[in-house]
């Protein structure tokens, strides 16, 4: 059971769990912004770039 859970965790989340967490937060914030009158389309692309760069910087020491 533990190995099964570990497999799915590694399959979905991968090497850096912070990336998955960052994406969930970014989509949540996008959904919040989309309920206002401010355009929200720009938020997710910028958040994706920020999450990726943060993860890469961490991996590159």
């Amino acid at each position, binding site marked *: 059971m533990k190995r099964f859970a570990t497999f799915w965790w590694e399959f979905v989340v991968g*090497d850096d769990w912070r990336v998955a967490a960052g994406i969930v937060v970014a989509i949540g914030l996008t959904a919040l912004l*989309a309920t206002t009158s401010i355009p*929200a389309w720009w*938020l997710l692309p910028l958040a994706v770039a920020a999450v990726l760069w943060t993860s890469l910087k961490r991996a590159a020491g």
Partner: protein
Amino acid sequence: MLSAFLASAVEMVEALTIVLAMGVTRGWRAALAGAGAATLALAAIVAVLGPALTVIPIEALRLVVGALLLVFGLQWLRKAILRASGWRALRDEDAVYARRAAEARGAQHELRAGLDWYGFTISFKGVLLEGLEVAFIVLTFGSTQGSIPLAAAGAAAAVVLVVVAGIVVHGPLSRVPENALAFAVGVMLTTFGTFWGAEGAGVDWPGDDASLPGVLGFVLLVSLTFVTALRRRRRLAPA
């Protein structure tokens, strides 16, 4: 279809290395039976989950699929950028083949159902695990674009191409530019993940679908910039 084709090509090059190592060292019967059983299992996963996904409302589907594609895409992109910038070693199919073959030679012979069990299970696991991500991509792209068979055809075409190339080359496909393909897959998954994830969250893209090339260009530009920045960082890093 292109995303499914490229992702399938990358994963099948890796699966081919495992099946080849098992075939040469443990016998082709068990290796091919394992690969065939795993292919059937993957086809069954797509056949069962595909129709189930079509009953989910499109907005909810896009949100979940977008989030998952983003997480997957960033995993591919992260690995490809680290490899392209020299922070992680490129995958060497010849070295993987040699290691797998050495392990297989040392493993015990055990017959089950008339097959060498080691050769069967390693081939089965190799194809199933490498193919699972492809099955996921086929399901997500196919369900959000309304054509799982088309995405499955793209993936199947890559399988055929890799198998034929393996037969022609008669060895691991070490000259396939795996990292460039993985980079392209990462960019595409991240692009569609961003687009659908945002749409699912309630965003109206300027120009609707016409903004997709813009998102693609942005993800590509950002990724190439990160490769350049990390290469510079690598050069300046103390040895």
